[in-house]
C-alpha cells in the first residue's frame, strides 16, 4: 500500500456533494500546517487509495484480504465439534445436505425430525441440496444417508467451510459492494470513504464469527436483504420484492425486517400520490415469488408416491388449526399438508419465550421476575404487543416518508425492537439489527466520530454478548483477535480513545459530528463493564449456587445496551426524517420565491 506520488494527492470531486457532506474530512486529521494523517487505522490502510487508484485494483485486494480472515477463522472450531450425540449447527447443516441429496422432496420436512429435522424455509433446503450434490462429487461418504451422522472428517470441514465462503462471495459480498456503491453515490460520498466503509462492513466481527466460526449461512439471508435494499435504491421495486422473498425463503429470521419493507413498499405506492398499478405489481410479484419458492414442493406433492408418504404422516398442528377440514382423499390434501408441514417446521410456536440466555428484554426480566409462572399464550400476546408497540413508530415514519435514505435507521430500529421484545430469539439474531446499523457507515457522515462511535459500540457489544456461545465452541481466540482487530481498525476502545476526543477537522472548523457527552458516558461505562466482565469471567469461577452468574450478567448488560441502541437508531431515524423534510421544505420555498 504505497502512497501515490505527491502530485496525485488531491481527491477528485466526482459528484456534486450535498451541502452537509463533509467529504473525506472525517478520515483525515490535520497536524500542524500541512501535515495530514489518517484519523484511524483503517483510513491509514486505504490511505493510498484516496485518489488515482482504480477500483479494479482496490476492490479485489479488499475482497482477498477479508476472504483470508474469513478462511483463517474457519480453521478454528465449529458448533458441536466433538459433542455427540447431537453435535451442533454444523452437523445440522451437513445433515440437511445429506437428507436433501438422498430423499424425495416430500420427505424433506418429515424425515427423522428428532435428529436435526429440516426447519428452515425452502431456499435453504435447495441450497443444501446443491451443496450436497457438489460435496458428493468429492466424497459420497460425507453425505451417506444415516451413516454419515456426526462425521468429523477434516476434509469435510474444509468443504463445508468452503461452501460458506463461496455462498457469501456469491450473494453477500456482491450485494454489499453494490449497495454501498449506490448508497454512497446517493449520499454524495466519495469513493475513498466508501471503500473504507466497505472494509468496515465486511470485517464486522459478529457476522464473521457466527458464519465462519460457529457455522451458519446467515450471510446468504443478509445478502439477499441487502440486494433488496440495493434494488430499492436503484428504484427497482419489483426486484426488491423478489430478493426480499428470497431472504425470507432462506431464513425466516428475515421477518425482523419485514414490517419495514412492507411499510416502505406500501408507502411508496401511496405517497406522495396513490399508485394503484404499482401496488398491484408489487403484491403480484411478491405472491408469484412465494409461489415459485414453494412450487417444487407443491408440484412434487401431487405424485402418487409422495401423496402416500404425506397422508400417512402425522398432521402438523397448523393443519389441524385450519378453519376448514381437508379430506384426506382429496387431491388437494397432499399439497396443503406439505405447505402446512413446512410452516409448522419453520415457525416453532411451541417453544418458549426465549431460548438459552439471550440479551433481550424477556430474558432480562426473567432474571428478576420469573416469567414461567405465566402461561405460554399470555406471554405470546404480551410479547406480540410490546413488539408491535416498539415497531409502530419507525414503521409509521417509513410508511409516511418512504425515502430510501431512511431505510437503514428504520430497519435497524425495527430489528432491534424484534430482538428485544419478540418471541423465541436467539443470541445469533443480533446479526440482523447489526447489519443495517453497520451499513450506516457507508452514508453521509457515516465515518464521522459520532456514527462510528455508536455503530462500533453496538457491534462490539453485540459480539460480546455472543462470547458465552463462542467460548463453548473454542472460538475464544478468534473472538478476541477479530473483535480487537475491528476495534483497532475503526479506532474504538479499548485500542484507542481518539474517537471520543475533540479535534478540529481538515478545514479548521470545530468538529460537528462528535459523540455527545452523554454518549461518551454511556459508551465508556459499557466498555469498562465489558472489560471488567472478561477479567472476572476468566479468573474467577462463578459461585456454586449461581453457575450461570457471569452469563446472566452478560445478558443483562447486553439487554441494556441493545435498548439504548434501539433508542439511538430511532432517534437517528427521526432526526434524519426531519432533516429531509426541512430540506424539501426549503427547496420548495426557494422555488416559490423564484
Amino acid at each position, binding site marked *: 500500500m504505497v502512497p501515490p506520488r505527491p502530485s496525485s494527492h488531491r481527491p477528485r470531486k466526482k459528484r456534486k456533494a450535498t451541502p452537509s457532506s463533509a467529504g473525506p474530512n472525517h478520515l483525515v486529521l490535520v497536524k500542524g500546517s500541512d501535515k495530514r*494523517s*489518517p484519523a484511524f487505522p483503517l483510513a491509514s490502510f486505504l490511505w493510498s487509495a484516496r485518489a488515482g487508484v482504480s477500483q479494479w485494483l482496490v476492490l479485489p485486494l479488499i475482497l482477498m484480504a477479508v476472504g*483470508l480472515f474469513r478462511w483463517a477463522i474457519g480453521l478454528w472450531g465449529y458448533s458441536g465439534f466433538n459433542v455427540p450425540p447431537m453435535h451442533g449447527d454444523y452437523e445440522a447443516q451437513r445433515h440437511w445436505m445429506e437428507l436433501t441429496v438422498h430423499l424425495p422432496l416430500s420427505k424433506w420436512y418429515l424425515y427423522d425430525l428428532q435428529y436435526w429435522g429440516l426447519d428452515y424455509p425452502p431456499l435453504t433446503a435447495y441450497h443444501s441440496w446443491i451443496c450436497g450434490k457438489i460435496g458428493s462429487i468429492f466424497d459420497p461418504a460425507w453425505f451417506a444417508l444415516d451413516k454419515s451422522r456426526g462425521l468429523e472428517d477434516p476434509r469435510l470441514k*474444509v468443504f463445508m467451510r468452503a461452501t460458506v465462503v463461496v455462498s457469501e462471495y456469491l450473494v453477500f459480498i456482491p450485494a454489499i459492494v453494490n449497495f454501498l456503491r449506490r448508497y454512497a453515490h446517493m449520499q454524495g460520498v466519495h469513493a475513498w470513504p466508501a471503500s473504507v466503509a466497505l472494509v468496515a462492513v465486511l470485517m464486522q466481527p459478529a457476522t464473521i464469527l457466527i458464519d465462519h466460526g460457529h457455522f451458519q449461512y446467515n450471510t446468504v439471508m443478509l445478502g439477499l436483504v441487502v440486494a433488496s435494499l440495493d434494488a430499492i435504491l436503484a428504484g427497482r421495486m419489483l426486484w426488491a420484492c423478489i430478493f426480499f422473498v428470497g431472504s425470507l425463503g432462506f431464513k425466516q429470521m428475515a421477518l425482523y425486517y419485514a414490517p419495514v419493507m412492507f411499510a416502505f413498499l406500501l408507502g411508496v405506492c401511496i405517497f406522495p400520490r396513490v399508485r394503484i398499478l404499482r401496488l398491484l405489481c408489487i403484491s403480484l410479484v411478491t405472491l408469484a415469488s412465494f409461489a415459485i419458492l414453494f412450487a417444487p414442493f407443491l408440484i412434487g406433492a401431487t405424485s402418487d408416491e409422495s401423496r402416500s408418504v404425506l397422508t400417512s404422516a402425522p398432521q402438523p398442528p397448523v393443519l389441524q388449526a385450519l378453519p376448514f377440514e381437508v379430506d384426506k382423499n382429496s387431491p388437494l390434501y397432499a399439497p396443503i399438508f406439505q405447505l402446512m408441514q413446512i410452516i409448522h417446521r419453520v415457525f416453532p410456536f411451541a417453544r418458549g419465550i426465549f431460548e438459552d440466555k439471550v440479551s433481550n428484554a424477556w430474558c432480562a426480566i426473567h432474571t428478576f421476575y420469573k416469567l414461567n409462572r405465566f402461561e405460554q399464550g399470555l406471554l405470546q400476546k404480551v410479547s406480540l404487543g410490546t413488539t408491535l408497540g416498539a415497531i409502530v413508530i419507525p414503521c409509521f415514519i417509513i410508511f409516511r416518508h418512504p425515502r430510501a435514505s431512511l431505510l437503514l435507521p428504520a430497519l435497524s430500529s425495527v430489528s432491534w425492537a424484534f430482538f428485544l421484545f419478540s418471541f423465541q430469539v436467539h443470541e445469533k439474531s443480533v446479526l440482523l439489527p447489526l447489519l443495517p446499523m453497520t451499513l450506516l457507515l457507508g452514508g453521509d457522515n457515516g465515518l464521522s466520530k459520532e456514527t462510528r462511535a455508536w455503530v462500533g459500540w453496538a457491534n462490539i457489544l453485540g459480539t460480546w454478548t455472543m462470547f458465552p456461545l463462542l467460548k463453548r465452541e473454542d472460538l475464544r481466540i478468534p473472538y478476541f483477535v*477479530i473483535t480487537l482487530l475491528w476495534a483497532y481498525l475503526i479506532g474504538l476502545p479499548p485500542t484507542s480513545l481518539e474517537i471520543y476526543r475533540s479535534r478540529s477537522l481538515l478545514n479548521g472548523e470545530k468538529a460537528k459530528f462528535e459523540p455527545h457527552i452523554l454518549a461518551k458516558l454511556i459508551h465508556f461505562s459499557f466498555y469498562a463493564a465489558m472489560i471488567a466482565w472478561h477479567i472476572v469471567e476468566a479468573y474467577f469461577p462463578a459461585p456454586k449456587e449461581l453457575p450461570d452468574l457471569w452469563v446472566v450478567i452478560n445478558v443483562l448488560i447486553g439487554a441494556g445496551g441493545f435498548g439504548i441502541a434501539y433508542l439511538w437508531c430511532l432517534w437517528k431515524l427521526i432526526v434524519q426524517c426531519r432533516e429531509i423534510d426541512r430540506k424539501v421544505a426549503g427547496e420548495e420555498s426557494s422555488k416559490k420565491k423564484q
Partner: protein
Amino acid sequence: MAELYPSLAQCAIVSAAFKILLFPTYKSTDFEVHRNWLAITHSLPAKEWYYEKTSEWTLDYPPFFAAFEWVLSQAARFADPDMLNVKNLRYDSWQTVYFQRTTVIISELVLLYALQRFVKAASHANKQLAYAAALSILLSPGLLIIDHIHFQYNGFLYGLLVLSMVLARKQSTLLYSGIIFAALLCLKHIYLYLALAYFVYLLRAYCFDPKSILRPKFGNSFKLGLGVLGVFGIAFGPFAYWNQLLQLRDRLFPFSRGLCHAYWAPNIWAMYSFTDRVLIPLAPRLGLPVNRDALGSVTRGLVGDTSFAVLPEVKKEHTFLLTFIFQLLPLVKLWLRPDWETFVGAITLCGYASFLFGWHVHEKAVLLIIIPFSLIALKDRRYFSAFRPLAVAGHVSLFPLLFTAAEFPIKTVYTVMWLVLFLFAFDRITPVPERPRIFVFDRFSFLYLTVAIPLIVYCSLVHQLIFGWGRYEFLPLMFMSSYSALGVVGSWVGFMVVYFTA
C-alpha cells in the same frame, strides 16, 4: 514529506492478528524439531546438547540458536512444562502450539525494527521506495508460509540480516554490521552462503581506506577482527573447551544428504533432473546409455541420492566449484566498487549462486535471494524487471511446502494478493533508469508473469479434474518446479547483467 501510510507498525499489528488466527494450521516436522530443541536445551547441560539423539531431529543449528531456544524454554515452562521433556516425542498440546507459534510472532519484531531502521536510513528522496520495499518484506508470503504455517524462525533471522545490512550503510556502523553478521552465522549457518560478500566488503570498505587500497586501516582491522572472533569465541569457545568441535561439525554439516531435496528447489539441478527425465525416452534414439538403476528414483521425490539416468552424475565438488565461481564474479566488482548498493547486489548474487548451484538446496532458501534483493529492487526499472520473475517464481515454488487442503486458499490467495499489491505498487513508483533497459528481459519478464496464472490454475485444479486425485502427482510438481527454476534462473541472468553494467 511524503506521507507513508499505513505505517510498518500498523501493518505488523494487522498481520500479527492474521498470524494468530493461523495457529491451528498445518505444521511441518520443523515444529517438532524446534520443540525437541526446546526440550534438549532446557533439560540437558550445554555439554550434551550436541550429543543428545533420542529424537531423530537432533540439534543441528549453531550454538547461538541453541541458546535462543534455551531462552525460549525458560518461558515455555510456564506454558506447558511437558513440552520440555526430551522423551515426549511429537508432543503438541495446544499450549505448546500456541507458545511456539507466539514466539515466532514475537521474535519477528526484530525484522520490524530492522525494517524501520532501513526506512529511516533512506535518503529523503528515496524514502517512499524504501518504505515500499520494507513493507513488502514485512508482509512477505514467504515468511508467512515458512514461519507462521510451516514453522521456522526466519523472520527473526532475516531481521538480523537486514539489520546488519542497514548498519553496513554508514562507515560509522560498519563494525556493528560485521559483528551482527557474525552473530547471525552463529545462529544459523545457512548464512555462510552470504559470508564471502560480507568478507570482501568489510575488508575493502572497513579495513582499507575506501579511496585507496594501499592504505590499510590497522585500527579498524583490529576492532573488526576482535569483534568477530569474540562472537565466534563466545559461541564455539565452550564447545572447543569441551573438545566437541568435531561433533559440532558433523551435526552442522551433514553431507550424507542428496543433491536435490524432497521437493525440488527451483534451481539448476531441478532443470538438470528435468532434462534427464525428458531424455530417458529419447536416449535410445540418440544412442545414449541409460542407467537402469536410476529410473525409479527421481519422480518419487524422496530425500536421498538422486541419480541420473542419462546425464552425468553430479558430485559435491562440482556444486561447490560452481557456487564458488559464481560467487566470485560479483565479488570482484564489489572489491573494485565498495559502495552499499553494490554490496547488497553482491549479497543477492551470492544468494543466487548458492541457491542455484548448491548441494541439497532447500526451497526455503529462496528467501536468501528475495529478501536482500527486495532492498534494492526498486532502485530503478532495470532492477525491478529482474526482480519480478523472482518474486513470482520464488513464492510459487514454496507452495508445495503446504499440501493440505485447508491451507491451500491461504497460501494462494495471500501470495496472489501480495503479488498484485506490490508488483502494481512497485510498478508505479519505481523510477526510470539512467541507462536504457534491455528489451529482451522486459519481454521475458512479462511473458513469464502471464504464464503463471494458467499454470497455477492447472496445477491446483485442472490437473486433478483431468486425471483425478492422486494420479500423475509428480507432473504438476515438476511443471511448477521447472517453471520456477526458469524464473529464478532468468531473473539471475537479468540481474547479473544489471549488476555488471550499473
